């Protein structure tokens, strides 16, 4: 990927990443490593590490909650779950995103 493509992607991620993360958590709670891996495999993250500041912000704004799971011997994992506030954010984002992304796709599509 060229650096200008990377810049474009970074800009697009900026406004959408938190909603992708919240949408992912609608499937059920997950721990940091899992979230980072899944988002990274989908090409949504610049680096897996960038998911942790985002999770911290979403927790502090009440969109996700955390709990410690110590059932695995010797390793406590921090699980993240979406809250009602978080679900509402995704819902509001979706109502804006769908028409927006459709318009963008249609206008940038090359004419035959």
């Amino acid at each position: 990927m060229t650096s200008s493509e990377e810049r474009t992607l970074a800009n697009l991620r900026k406004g959408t990443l938190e909603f992708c993360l919240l949408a992912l958590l609608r499937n059920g709670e997950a721990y940091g490593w899992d979230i980072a891996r899944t988002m990274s495999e989908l090409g949504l993250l610049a680096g897996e590490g960038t998911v942790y500041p985002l999770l911290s912000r979403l927790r502090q704004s009440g969109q996700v909650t955390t709990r410690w799971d110590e059932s695995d011997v010797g390793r406590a994992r921090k699980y993240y779950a979406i809250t009602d506030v978080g679900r509402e954010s995704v819902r509001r984002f979706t109502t804006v995103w769908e028409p927006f992304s459709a318009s963008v796709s249609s206008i940038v599509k090359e004419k035959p």
Partner: protein
Amino acid sequence: MNTTDRVTVLPGLAQFYLRRLRGNLWALPQRDQREVIAGIEAHIREGLGAASDDPDRTDDVLGSLGTPEEVAQQALDDYEERTGRTAHPKYLTVPRGLQIGVLALVVAATLAALLLPAGISDTQLDSGDHIIVATTLLQSNSPIVLIPMTIPLLLAIMPLIARKRGWRAVSIASTALLGVFAVVASATLGWFYLPALLLAVVAVSLPWRGRV
């Protein structure tokens, strides 16, 4: 050791990564720093599993995290998004502004101590008359007196040139030493340095970050 055992000691490269991350997060409140670092550290431990002595594995895990600078940049952006405050403080913060005031007061105190009349010289003439003249510190002492007088100036300058993470430690040290100097000086010069000292105490007590 089975595979679920916690890696107790992280490999040097991973520790170096965390140190660099911490170094780039300095502008954030402690609590935010800790949460991000704890998340990254847990991620590294999870990724290494029982293979903490495998350098290739360490490279893979750290490589896929992105650089510490990228993670820190995301953390600064998230802080600004959440709080509406800047996470990139300018040089001139409120405490730093007050410390410039401290320097000004120290300069004023030094000039006052040197130039205000500090003693009297009593010259008896042959006629038996006395000529009594007020003298300044500089007139009644050798220029060597100027050397200790530079101490409070240096102490006031130190916090102004300290950067980033060292600022509070330097400020506390310089304020404490300024306090010692003010007390010692009070015995000979007077309480000239008290206003500067009080302002320095206020400056060092304030939080670093000002609102945007």
